[in-house]
């Protein structure tokens, strides 16, 4: 009766655990945050960039393009959409399409604050000789085509601070204006930029924003569509929304297909609906346990993890297949299980070694997949071991499709003949791989991105159109607070101005250009003479020039007001497009394990001629203000460090598997026998991947590790001494079906558009299949040796 009591406990524990998992899952937050697949522990600079990608202004920008149709019609759509979107201030912080209304606000801000913003305002700038120069220049300028406009502002701004500010920002690339709105350089697309209030990772909010954009576009109804116009959107938020939709669709579709295929296989194999249901029990338990474990371990469950769950369907069902196939009439299920349990357990442990390498890697995303698989497999094995035998009715036998047995056995026996050809193929593959050693790897960090290549292309195109060229170099200034970061930017800007003057640099942007540090603002205020002095200087400067007396009295008034006005704050920029600039160039750092909290100013550089010289300038120890960052170098370094990390963990995983085999099998010869087909499978898989035009990414490495982890199950069963010919035949059949289900799980993922799932799925499907075949070839025994040796 202890047996029965133990069974009851097993069932109760199982049921309790399932309820627990269900409760955890019900409270789980599912995400599609793309940064989960970006590095977790990069350098502080990289951390800033990743943080920007997650919730910075950059993550809130949606690039919108309308193409197809005449420029006039496109401009009309652009204006209509902008007006419509501006009606939703709760969703959009700003909508820019180049219309003057938005630009006017910027000009207005520059105009009102010209004396605080202009770097030219310094002691002596309003002296009589300096004013004289300015007035002579103006006398010439007021006659030019722009003169009519200049005459409007001349009495208030004789030193031309507004023009200086506008010229300063002119070098900054911006879209072309046609028909009053932004257009791509070729005039084929009208462009808009919307800034959402919600961060890029808030996918629900991003989706609402996207729906509003689509509605605003369709709002014109027949007009827009009849003109053949097409809406294009891009940006981090769009990626997140699309990825989530795609992962959702993939995960759902693949789960349904995988379940149907596996169920169909079970039905064909056992011709019993009851066996089918029993076979799915470990699978369902494993999936629930996996999701619950990730939810507890990571706080959220990534959509990609669910997509990866498909593989668990194919893996977890194997254990039930091994069990069912081993059951022979007259032997209780628990006894049949006891016979294969050591092999099953060892197979599980090797799989865990493989997935543990993912768990330890620097990718939070991969870590989720690892934890999910480990928890899922452990749950599935435990359910197969302790729950499934209890659920089987007494005297349960399964009628496996025995017709396959002899054929499979014969095939396996004859596979031996391929031993030498296989060794030859493997050697050739090794030679090919070593010949191509230098070009095995994809060096592009983008290859890790879960964003589809077509989306990336569109994004690059729109970014180019909008005049936001890819930033490669930027100077980063870290400081304790925003004002100190701005002051640091001003110091850096002095160096950069010198570099621009020497033509070593085409230009740069700085947040301090739009929001000077309070020290700079105070210095500029101090440089403005008292009204009486300024009037006297003007009188002297005007002598002999035809300007009317008292013409510049408005200037005296404005200058006096500027000298005493409250300094500009970040809030002073609200409502202008410049606010967006400042927010993207001056960001708050959240404190983390490796960096203190504070503020970071970023100064993107254009047209860098000599990066090394710039770096030396900035490293000048007397005022160590900023650090030059080469983003390409950073991202390359990031990718390299990532790759070596994954390779290291994969090697550790592989070593762990070998040690595990050594401890369990206690024989070098047997370990070598188990490993040889796996090694051959990994090598040939690598060759096949390269031959089909893949550059290897770290996801392929992970896939190869899983080939070893999963394939070792087959090799172990092959290597295992069979009690009799019947058991060997049953083992072969169960291996064949276990392999087919694995192929179903991983093979389906190879059809996913998510690069990670595609790479791992394809690699494991090929590798697992080869592992089985190679195990038959290299470990298979001749028919005569099938009986237990004496």
């Amino acid at each position, binding site marked *: 009766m202890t047996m029965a009591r133990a069974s009851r406990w097993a069932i109760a524990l199982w049921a309790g655990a399932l309820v627990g998992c269900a409760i955890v899952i019900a409270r789980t937050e599912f995400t599609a945050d793309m940064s989960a697949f970006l590095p977790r522990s990069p350098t502080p600079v990289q951390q800033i960039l990743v943080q920007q990608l997650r919730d910075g202004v950059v993550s809130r920008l949606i690039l919108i393009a309308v193409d197809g149709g005449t420029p006039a019609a496109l401009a009309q759509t652009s204006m209509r959409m902008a007006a419509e979107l501006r009606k939703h201030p709760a969703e959009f912080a700003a909508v820019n399409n180049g219309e003057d209304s938005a630009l006017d606000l910027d000009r207005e801000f520059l105009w009102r604050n010209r004396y605080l913003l202009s770097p030219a305002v310094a002691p002596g700038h309003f002296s009589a000789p300096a004013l004289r120069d300015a007035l002579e220049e103006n006398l010439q300028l007021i*006659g030019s085509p722009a003169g009519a*406009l200049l005459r409007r502002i001349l009495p208030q701004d004789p030193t031309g601070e507004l023009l200086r500010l506008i010229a300063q920002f002119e070098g900054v690339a911006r879209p072309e204006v046609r028909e009053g709105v932004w257009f791509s350089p070729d005039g084929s697309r009208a462009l808009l930029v919307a800034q959402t209030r919600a961060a890029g990772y808030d996918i629900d909010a991003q989706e609402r924003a996207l729906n509003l954009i689509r509605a605003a576009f369709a709002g014109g109804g027949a007009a827009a569509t009849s003109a053949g116009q097409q809406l294009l959107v891009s940006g981090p938020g769009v990626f997140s929304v699309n990825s989530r939709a795609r992962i959702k669709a993939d995960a759902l579709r693949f789960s349904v297909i995988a379940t149907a295929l596996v169920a169909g296989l079970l039905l064909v194999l056992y011709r019993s609906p009851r066996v089918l249901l029993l076979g799915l029990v470990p699978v369902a338990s494993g999936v629930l346990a996996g999701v619950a474990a990730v939810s507890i371990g990571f706080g959220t469950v990534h959509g990609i993890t669910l997509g990866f769950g498909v593989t668990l369907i194919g893996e977890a069902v194997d254990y039930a297949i091994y069990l069912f196939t081993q059951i022979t009439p007259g032997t209780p299920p628990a006894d049949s299980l006891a016979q294969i349990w050591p092999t099953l357990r060892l197979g599980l442990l090797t799989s865990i070694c493989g997935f543990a390498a993912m768990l330890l890697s620097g990718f939070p995303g991969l870590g989720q997949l690892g934890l999910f698989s480990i928890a899922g497999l452990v749950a599935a094995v435990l359910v197969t071991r302790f729950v499934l035998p209890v659920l089987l009715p007494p005297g349960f036998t399964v009628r496996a499709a025995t017709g396959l047995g002899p054929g499979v056995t014969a095939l396996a026996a004859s596979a031996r003949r391929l031993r030498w050809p296989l060794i030859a193929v493997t050697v050739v593959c090794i030679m090919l791989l070593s010949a191509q050693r230098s070009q095995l790897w994809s060096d592009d960090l983008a290859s890790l991105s879960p964003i589809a290549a077509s989306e990336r292309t569109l994004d690059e195109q729109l970014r180019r159109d909008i005049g936001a060229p890819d930033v490669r170099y930027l100077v980063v200034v870290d400081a304790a607070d925003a004002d100190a970061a701005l002051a640091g930017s001003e110091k850096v800007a002095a160096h950069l101005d010198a570099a621009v003057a020497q033509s070593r640099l085409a230009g740069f942007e700085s947040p301090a250009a739009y929001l000077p540090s309070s020290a700079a603002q105070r210095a500029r205020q101090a440089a403005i003479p008292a009204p009486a002095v300024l009037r006297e200087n003007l009188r002297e400067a005007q002598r002999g020039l035809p*300007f009317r007396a008292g013409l510049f009295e408005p200037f005296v008034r404005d200058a006096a007001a500027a000298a005493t006005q409250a300094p500009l704050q970040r809030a002073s920029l609200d409502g202008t497009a410049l606010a967006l600039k400042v927010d993207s160039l001056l960001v708050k750092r959240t404190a983390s394990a490796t960096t203190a909290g504070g503020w970071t100013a970023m100064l993107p550089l254009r047209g860098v001629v000599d990066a090394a010289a710039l770096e030396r300038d900035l490293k000048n120890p007397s005022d160590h203000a900023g650090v030059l960052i080469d983003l390409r170098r950073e991202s390359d370094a990031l990718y390299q460090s990532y790759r070596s990390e994954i390779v290291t963990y994969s090697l550790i995983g592989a070593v762990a598997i070998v040690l595990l085999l050594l401890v369990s099998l206690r024989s070098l010869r047997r370990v070598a026998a188990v490993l040889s087909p796996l090694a051959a499978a990994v090598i040939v898989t690598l060759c096949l991947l390269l031959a089909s035009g893949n550059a290897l990414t770290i996801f392929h490495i992970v896939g190869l590790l899983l080939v070893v982890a999963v394939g070792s199950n087959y090799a172990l069963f092959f290597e295992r001494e069979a009690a009799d010919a019947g058991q060997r035949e049953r083992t072969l059949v169960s291996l064949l079906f276990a392999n087919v289900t694995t192929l179903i799980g991983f093979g389906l993922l190879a059809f996913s558009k998510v690069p990670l799932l595609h790479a791992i799925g394809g690699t494991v499907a090929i590798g697992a299949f080869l592992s089985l075949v190679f195990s038959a070839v290299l470990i298979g025994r001749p028919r005569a040796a099938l009986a237990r040796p004496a």
Partner: protein
Amino acid sequence: MFVFALAAGGAAVAAETPVWDIEQLMQGLSKVPAAKGKFVERKYLAMLTAPLDSSGTLVYTAPGRLEKNTLAPKPERLVLDQDKLTLEYPDRGQRRVLALQNYPVVWAFVESIRSTLAGDYQTLNRFYRASVAGGEEQWRLSLKPVDPKMQAVVQEIRIGGSHNRVRTIEILETQGDRSVMTITEDGP
């Protein structure tokens, strides 16, 4: 009396047409491939106590290039080519290039002259309501801006000429400032 013929050949307007109108003026102007001449300009500006005089040369090449070289009182060079306006002030070593699309008012200004010289009625109509008075021998083209921004600056631009030659350009601004440019063509 200055006479400035922008056309080297001076192609005659079809004589059989009974009524001479703006379309014909434009058509005649559009046949001029290139022209070169001197200008004298006088500006009456409210902010100055005396008028501002300047002089220099003009070079036009059909259909889109116009060069204005001011020689006195200070050198200044304006080059209008397609959609770019280059301003150069040699004695200050300054040079600026404006994309006209970004400066609608400046664009309207330069287009009043360029489109007239090119006989580009379509472009002219985009910026101005154009009407013509007088006859082929002595015509006066009146341009009134359509864009409110331009209306705020310019009241009317009057261009006077004879056949396909432009002789005077007068700009009347809303706030009372005005300028008159008189053009003399170089000998053929």
